């Protein structure tokens, strides 16, 4: 089984190992290590890069109308968008609708057009049904189509078709930012009662921020306790920190409902002790959400801080004390700066995981506590509007990348990752 290249190494033993590696063996070693990380690269490509790329593509992809109504799409490219399109556009629409009748792609094109204005789905379906009966227009297709539905004589209808027909669209990304492209092609804010996503995004980031802050305030002293306490006690404490890690997210979240609800454990205790008269509203609101999220995310804050603190020798603090620094000054000037990479990594991790939360807000939050992922899941699962779902995801991703870049610039990505 042994190959010829291996045999000399075996027989020469230590002599080879001590000799400086030749160029070819170094190249071979490099190849071996490249092969060894191949599974990882493949894995990352398959489960990370491709889906993420797919999501970003979905956010701008717009093939529906062009595929179902190719003639109309071509006509729309040539139309200026002013007044009404020429008779040839009406004829193309009639032709395309006849050809596409019964084709599922027409259904998808209708859905896409309906995003531009509610009601256009039915308009397209109705027109496709009626147009089949007309072989030859009596006074041109413009008249026939307008007779089927007067909306075909409105510029707005055609402007919507024009916006919906190119193969790429800013529609989803604009919608995810509460913006609209109006009939003249200029971008404006959506009407006040339809602005949703910016508010939701702001709320998402705020909830992420507060959760991170609370985790830091609780996690930092706890991590310090874990490194300074006697071994036995520290390991018990460590198990307590890690316990939620080993429990299902759903169980942890539901447990909080049991504890915090109106007839729950905590309210029962408080009323029995006479601290409150009526049970407090502790869950299905922001308070309950923070409690559950902090509980779940705390290990993500503690573990990176802990790993950094473990590497800080106690002699630094002793040195600062021997040089006359007050413990508070020593902590602020000596200890705290050395823990910053851990704090940065912990905050970043907690925040990034926190803003993506979906199950916890939907279970323990109220109507005012739903985050962007609620809408992402709603559009992906319920209405199958994958474009808008992807666009919301892309915007959330952009926010996180922005934050990552900022923190990376302040603390240094290498330090956060523990490479440097």
């Amino acid at each position, binding site marked *: 089984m042994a190959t010829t290249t291996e045999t000399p190494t075996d027989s020469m033993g230590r002599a080879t190992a001590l000799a400086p590696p030749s160029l070819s063996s170094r190249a071979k070693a490099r190849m071996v290590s490249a092969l060894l990380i191949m599974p990882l690269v493949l894995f990352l490509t398959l489960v990370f890069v491709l889906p993420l790329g797919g999501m970003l593509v979905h956010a701008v992809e717009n093939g529906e109308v062009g595929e179902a109504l190719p003639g109309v799409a071509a006509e729309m490219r040539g139309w200026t968008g002013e007044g009404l399109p020429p008779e040839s556009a009406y004829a193309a629409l009639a032709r395309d609708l006849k050809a596409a009748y019964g*084709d*599922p*792609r*027409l*259904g*998808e094109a*209708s*859905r896409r057009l*309906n*995003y531009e204005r*509610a*009601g*256009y*789905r*039915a308009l397209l*379906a109705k027109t496709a049904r009626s147009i089949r009966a007309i072989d030859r227009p009596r006074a041109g297709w413009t008249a026939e189509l307008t007779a089927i539905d007067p909306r075909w004589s409105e510029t707005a209808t055609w402007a919507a078709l024009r916006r919906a027909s190119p193969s790429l669209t800013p529609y989803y990304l604009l919608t995810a930012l509460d913006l609209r492209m109006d009939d003249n092609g200029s971008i404006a804010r959506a009407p006040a*009662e*339809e*602005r*949703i996503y910016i*508010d*939701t995004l702001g*709320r998402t980031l705020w909830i992420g921020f507060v959760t991170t802050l609370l985790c830091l305030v609780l996690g930092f002293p706890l991590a310090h306790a874990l490194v300074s306490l006697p071994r036995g006690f520290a390991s018990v404490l460590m198990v307590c920190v890690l316990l939620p890690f080993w429990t299902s997210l759903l169980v942890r979240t539901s447990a909080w409902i049991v504890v915090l609800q*109106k007839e729950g454990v905590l309210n029962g205790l408080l009323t029995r002790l006479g601290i409150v008269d009526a049970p407090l509203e502790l869950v299905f609101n922001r308070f309950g959400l923070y409690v559950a999220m902090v509980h779940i995310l705390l290990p993500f804050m503690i573990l990176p801080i802990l790993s950094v603190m473990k590497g800080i020798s106690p002699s630094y603090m002793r040195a600062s004390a021997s040089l006359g620094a007050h413990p508070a000054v020593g902590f602020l000037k000596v200890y705290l700066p050395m823990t910053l990479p851990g704090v940065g990594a912990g905050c970043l991790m907690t925040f990034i995981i926190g803003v993506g939360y979906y199950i916890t807000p939907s279970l323990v939050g109220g*109507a*005012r506590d*739903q985050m962007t992922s*609620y*809408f992402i899941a*709603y559009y*992906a*699962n*319920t*209405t*199958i*509007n994958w474009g808008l779902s992807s666009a919301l995801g892309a915007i959330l991703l952009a926010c996180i990348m922005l934050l990552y870049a900022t923190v990376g610039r302040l603390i240094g990505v290498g330090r956060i990752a523990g490479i440097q």
Partner: protein
Amino acid sequence: MMLHATRIVGCALAAGLLSVPALAQSPQTEQLTVVGAGGVLQDAERAVFFRPFANANKVQLTEDSYSGQMAKVRAMVDTGSVSWDVLQVEQNSLLSGCEEGLFEKIDWTGIGDRRDFIDEAYSECGVGAFVWSMVMTYDRARTADGPKGWADFWNVQRWPGKRGLRQTAKMTLEIALLADGVPREEVYKVLATPAGVERAFASLDRLKPDILWWTSGAEPIERLASGDVVMSAAFNGRVAAANQGGRSFALAWDGQVLGVDYWAIPKGAKNRATAERFIAFASRPEVQARFPSHIAYGVTNRKANLAVDPKLAADLPTSPANFTLAVPLDTAFWADHGEALEARFANWRSR
């Protein structure tokens, strides 16, 4: 033929592996996977449709359940790995799914005469399975002189306390308009205009502080029983089930919002022929007539409605007296406006 032959061999092998008596069974056992909405509803469906069909036709029937999310069906159809054969779907999912090619077209000649069914039961891609409705209900044990309709539901001076409404725009906006005095037959005409949508939200605004939202059908019943809400919108079948369980919930048929659920076959289903036979079976009057005794939902075959025990019939949304008070859900309206209105509704709730 090849496929058939391999299946026979496969079945024979499987039968052989199981046990010797299993060999007595026909080796050509047909398979069928039926998907419902779970819970007490699926229990009723199992008793009335699934088991009798499987026994009568020697079909090996597998059940699954889902929460009405079309994304899974879409993924199955797109990837060509359709593991479901018959699916219970809501109206507007059926309509848009049909247009987008998610469902097989139904051959109605195999189902029966269209005129035997209520109008809403007919669809190109589905056959009406049962009729359910959203009704107003309250606990007689707690509220003696209870509200009579949606207008009373909004009257918080006379009946103070929280009200339960389902956390969707669909049906809730209709109810808000009914409460605001819009006649039953004009609800969708009003709702189709921007002013009508404003009116519906304005109506909801007035009740907003007193609303407790629910998402699963069991919640309103539990909350009424615990006294967390004084009245609630609820599925009529759940109310009837609670009353059978010893509760005394009153319900108002006036302004009930009617919905129909359908049987549909996902595009590319592996056992399409069996699926069609199942739907035909589940549409027979004598089969459907047994359904209301298991759960208080109406059925779609007119002959079945006539055959239902008169004592039960009065508690069904489809009984003539109740039916005239109903607002049938306008599927086409929700297919067009659903997404925009649901988003606005979610936004309104979060303010």
